[in-house]
């Protein structure tokens, strides 16, 4: 049970350089794969390709194969993939449908699209709102939310689909530390309870240190490092790749540089 990238190369129409080049990655069910990288390293493209949205909805050329539980994304229809792999975009506002009067109806948008029974729709919406602690927003107009609230609502909309895999492009970019911790706990709980596989793109390496089983580092469309989370985050080349290590590692390094002995805190 995996999302598998094999020799994936993806170039946008009209672009000279491919956005992704020779990607080989595997996301297993019940695990979290973190992806880090500087801007323009191909992280968002990786998300679109993983969910089968590129090249289905964006003009471009895909070489290599991406399979979700054995189903090639190249031949599948987007609505089939939507049930297998939920995707959360960087900008939550454009993820909202724009047709719902309330947050409740916004979260119900995707389950309704699948024509599920009304009771099932109600169950999914109520549970997604409760899981993310945003039941209090249910009656609000989705167009009148703060960035952080919109991000949680968009995530609830994805969770309500109950896909076996989630692809999350900076899901906490607009959240405060409390909201970030909440999302981290929710996702960890989801993995444990449902065995979901999560591919998460994040700049917040502290968050990845807490939840990612494995981490891949992208640079100009290539995977330059991949391995267990702790090992990759402790890699001394991380800052050369434009990534800030987790605070524990930075503190330990600063202390070591100052000749101060500190206990192992990086973990």
């Amino acid at each position, binding site marked *: 049970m995996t999302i598998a990238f094999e020799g994936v190369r993806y170039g946008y129409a009209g672009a000279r350089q491919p956005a992704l080049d020779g990607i080989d990655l595997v996301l297993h069910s019940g695990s979290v794969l973190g992806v880090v990288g500087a801007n323009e390293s191909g992280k968002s493209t990786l998300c679109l390709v993983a969910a089968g949205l590129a090249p289905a909805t964006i003009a471009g050329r895909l070489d290599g194969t991406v399979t979700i539980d054995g189903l090639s994304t190249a031949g599948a229809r*987007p609505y089939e993939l*939507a049930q297998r792999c939920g995707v959360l975009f960087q900008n939550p506002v454009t*993820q909202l449908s724009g047709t719902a009067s*309330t947050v*409740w*109806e916004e979260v119900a948008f995707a389950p309704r*699209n699948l024509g599920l029974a009304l009771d099932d729709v109600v169950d999914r919406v109520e549970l997604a709102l409760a899981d993310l602690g945003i039941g209090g927003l249910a009656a609000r107009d989705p167009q009148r939310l703060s960035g952080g609230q919109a991000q949680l609502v968009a995530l609830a909309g994805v969770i309500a689909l109950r896909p076996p895999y989630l692809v999350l492009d900076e899901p906490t970019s607009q959240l405060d530390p409390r909201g970030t911790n909440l999302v981290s706990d929710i996702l960890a709980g989801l993995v444990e309870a449902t065995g979901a596989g999560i591919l998460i793109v994040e700049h917040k390496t502290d968050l990845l240190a807490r939840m990612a089983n494995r981490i891949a580092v992208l640079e100009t469309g290539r995977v330059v490092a991949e391995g267990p989370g702790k090992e990759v985050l402790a890699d001394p080349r991380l800052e050369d790749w434009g990534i800030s290590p987790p605070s524990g590692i930075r503190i330990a390094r600063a202390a070591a540089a100052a000749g101060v002995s500190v206990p192992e805190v990086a973990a």
Partner: protein
Amino acid sequence: MAELEAPAAPSAPSDGSTAISGRLPDFVARPPTGPYRRLNPTTKLVIAFAEALVAFGVRGWTGPLVVLGVILAGAVTARIGRALLPYLLATIPLVASILLINTFLYPGATDRIVTVGPLAPTWTGLVAATQATLRVVAFAMSVALLGLTTQPDHLIADLERRGAGRRVMFVVGATLRMIPRMIERAGEITEAQRARALDTEGRVWRRARGVVPLAGPLVFGALTDVEELTMALEARGFTAPTRRTVLRVFPDSGWERGARWALFLGSIVVLILSIAGRLEFLP
């Protein structure tokens, strides 16, 4: 992966109740209250359509005056008399131009009311202008009555339940809800431009100059949003070949269905008779 099936469209209850799941929160169910508001959303749409058809299709005074009478009755029943006022005021620029152009420049009219230098308003022009004004006002009030008594998502939900295309309904719904968002965004861009010393206030020509740097970000931003929204819709199963789950089913009794069809067909018959010149006896 769950197999997608197309469930049959739920039928509307005929006993006047709104069929909604008891588990839906009140703020989602939002059952309409009041005698006019409780009409099926599609019935109110057909009423507005018939009103517009008769107001513009039946020549003379009869068409617009009958329609205005019907609208007034509807407005009183729905208790929205005062709420119609802004819609009435919104017609003033159009009405003023109709009155001026027809009264002073009606082609071929010679029955002058008065002559003041080169200006010569005519009785024929004034009558035509007044009739045209009544038609415009009747049309605006019919739209206002529909808008004030029907929530857009109720209308969309009901049309979708009747088999209207998911894409068409999405475009209608998204457009209705996008207008305030676009206005808001224009305000945000204006503020941002002002912060960079662009003068967007004062004389008309200055404001006109300020529109140019506003239009670019507004239009291109909207186009970018559309691209991302398209991806988001695909990711949320929008193109699934199944019928969408209906949250609310609005009452649609037998007599209401019959009355709706009678009104729809009747208004078309009246239009045809009017075009054929069979209603010339009407004032």
